[in-house]
């Protein structure tokens, strides 16, 4: 993990993540934003791999890119007139928002710089899937089951909101 190559790759992923996130927020075209988001998710998945979260990285790609991003793209496509290739977006007053976001960033940097986080040896890089599976069946079984009811509620709700009212 300390080899120069590894460090370079890390910085590449970090750059991919942050730069594409900036593009998501600053881009004038909605489609560019959506595709930049794809790269952001990809970069985050790479960071997860560096942090030893192999299962999470795979989950991130499958759900975020394969699910959420596709949904967002559909959302973009379906909410514009079909042949209107504009897809430009407008912004509210940009400067106050920028100032607020900058203030947030500076505050967070201060927090990160000063805080003494909880200690411990950084965990070794091990495959996590089996352990996560066990945790879901033991310590976290309640949130696991509740999450399935939660998804059912979301499913019913989303379908109900968009369906044609046939009655």
């Amino acid at each position, binding site marked *: 993990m300390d080899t120069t190559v590894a460090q370079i790759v*890390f910085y590449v992923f970090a750059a991919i993540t942050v730069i594409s996130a900036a593009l998501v927020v600053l881009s004038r075209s909605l489609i560019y934003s959506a595709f930049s988001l794809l790269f952001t998710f990809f970069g985050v998945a790479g960071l997860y791999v*560096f942090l030893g979260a192999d299962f999470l990285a795979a989950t991130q790609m499958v759900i975020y890119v394969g699910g*959420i991003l596709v949904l967002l793209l559909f959302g973009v496509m379906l909410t514009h007139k079909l042949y209107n290739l504009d897809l430009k977006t407008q912004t509210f007053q940009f400067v106050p928002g920028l100032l607020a976001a900058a203030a947030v960033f500076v505050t967070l940097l201060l927090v990160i710089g000063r805080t003494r986080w909880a200690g411990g040896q950084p965990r070794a890089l091990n495959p996590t899937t089996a352990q996560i599976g066990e945790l879901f069946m033991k310590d976290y079984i309640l949130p696991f089951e509740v999450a399935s009811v939660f998804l059912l509620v979301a499913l019913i709700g989303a379908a109900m909101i968009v369906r044609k009212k046939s009655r």
Partner: protein
Amino acid sequence: MIGLTHYLVISAALFSLGILGVLTRKNAVNVLMGIELILNSANINLVAFSKFASADLQGQIFAIFIIVIAAAEVAVALAIVLSMYKLVKSVNLDEADTLKG
């Protein structure tokens, strides 16, 4: 030597960019993208802390649940956005103004 701080700075940047997106974007789908950035930044925090600050995989488990919640939230949000588009033919937030205030 890549340490905890590197990851935290990246997530702080993502969080701030997400806030910027939420505050400045007019298109509802764009705001959703900003929200996704915020959630991802929290996830990076969780996984980084899980590796460096806690003895177990709590952070990663939490992150998995966040991904699940985010997916459900986007689905419902897009359903509502689509519904608005059918009614108003636009998803600009400054056209959502029949409710005053």
